[in-house]
């Protein structure tokens, strides 16, 4: 599997190493949903910086990972979306509002700290 999944304190870090097939994406979603419960994780970081392309299926899956994880009690942050990928993603006419994204891992953990503290900025 081309996704490395690491555990760091309360967070799960899933680093996607290369393009994923549709099946692998679905597997990733299942695995993360499961791991959140097993590790009692409060946050997930998904690193997509190795991806040059994110098609609409992957984009939709990322969105559903975020929503699924939230139902399981964890917030998700996407890391390292490339400019071209970002441009492509906003053209899928997909509601990407649930996706939170930052550029590097530091920012991701900082954002997760903030999100899981339940501070008033949540409403944005």
């Amino acid at each position: 599997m081309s996704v490395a999944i690491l555990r760091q304190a309360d967070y799960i870090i899933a680093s996607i190493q290369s393009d994923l097939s549709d099946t692998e994406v679905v597997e990733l979603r299942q695995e993360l949903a499961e791991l959140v419960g097993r590790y009692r994780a409060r946050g997930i970081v998904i690193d997509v910086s190795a991806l040059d392309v994110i098609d609409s299926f992957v984009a939709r899956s990322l969105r559903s990972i975020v929503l699924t994880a939230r139902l399981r009690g964890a917030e998700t942050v996407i890391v390292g979306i490339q400019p071209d990928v970002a441009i492509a993603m906003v053209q899928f006419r997909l509601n990407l509002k649930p996706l939170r994204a930052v550029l590097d891992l530091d920012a991701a953990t900082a954002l997760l700290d903030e999100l899981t503290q339940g501070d008033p900025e949540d409403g944005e």
Partner: protein
Amino acid sequence: MSPDGRDQMAADTESQTAEVDQEESDKQRPAERSDGDESILLELVSYLRDCRTELREEWARRISEADLLDVMEDDEIFSEATEVYDNYMDALETGSVETLQKYARELSERIIPRGVDTDEVLGIVLLLRDVLARSLFTKYQDNLEHLNRVLDAYEPAANRIAVTVGVSFVEERDRVIHDQQESIRELSTPVLQLRERLLILPMIGVLDSSRARQLKEQLLASIRDNRATVVVIDITGVATIDRTVANHLVQAVEASRLMGARTILTGLSPEIAQTVVDLGVDLSMMRTVGDLQGGIEEAERLAGYGDGVADDSNGDDDT
């Protein structure tokens, strides 16, 4: 001298001989194409050189009569005309248009910024062609056969010259337009770093869809390069936007969010605000602030600088 009478006469001759030329040339052209051409061309070039002063004046006069080049002074036209005339002769004589081409480029470079149009340039070159052709008619009108051969030699060369000059002018103008577009493009979307991780994009001028797309790409590239977390796009200097552009803006903001940056849009004019509402573009996910000042304040707050400006100046002294 009565130019009208002469013109009239010459014009008559022209129309007559043009017909004859048509018939004759159909019969004669294949046979004596190449051998006579060279010497005839030389002959007519030397004749035209002899009449240089007269023909040049005639040409300059007809340029002013036709109201061409009205941005230029008469003596200026005359000196350029001299230059063109001599180059024209060289091109006729040698059959090589390179020098003329070079000169035409330089000339275009000089006159384009002064607002000379393509039709004027083509007009004056064709005028010179006519003036010369007409003088050839007057000289050879008694010997129709010879006139035909002279014209056979002259016309293709003259056409080639006219095309060269016209094309040089248009190319030069295209180049100028291209350069200007380039510099407008570079000027039009500067990305300024106000503080660490805080960028400002002031947009000025017409925001069309190609520029909006460019804005989007530049915005995302600079977010990545500067690791920006907050971007202020100021569109105070933009007069109107349409649906496509509004959607590009929405996409730009959405895409920069995917790269971890929050975007603040400032300076929407009343017209743009109403347009956006009328178009039904959903800007609800955008932060919009009335003016750039407010936008920067908001951006500093978002980027975690708080109201650090006043504190900094005091704090430095104390510590």
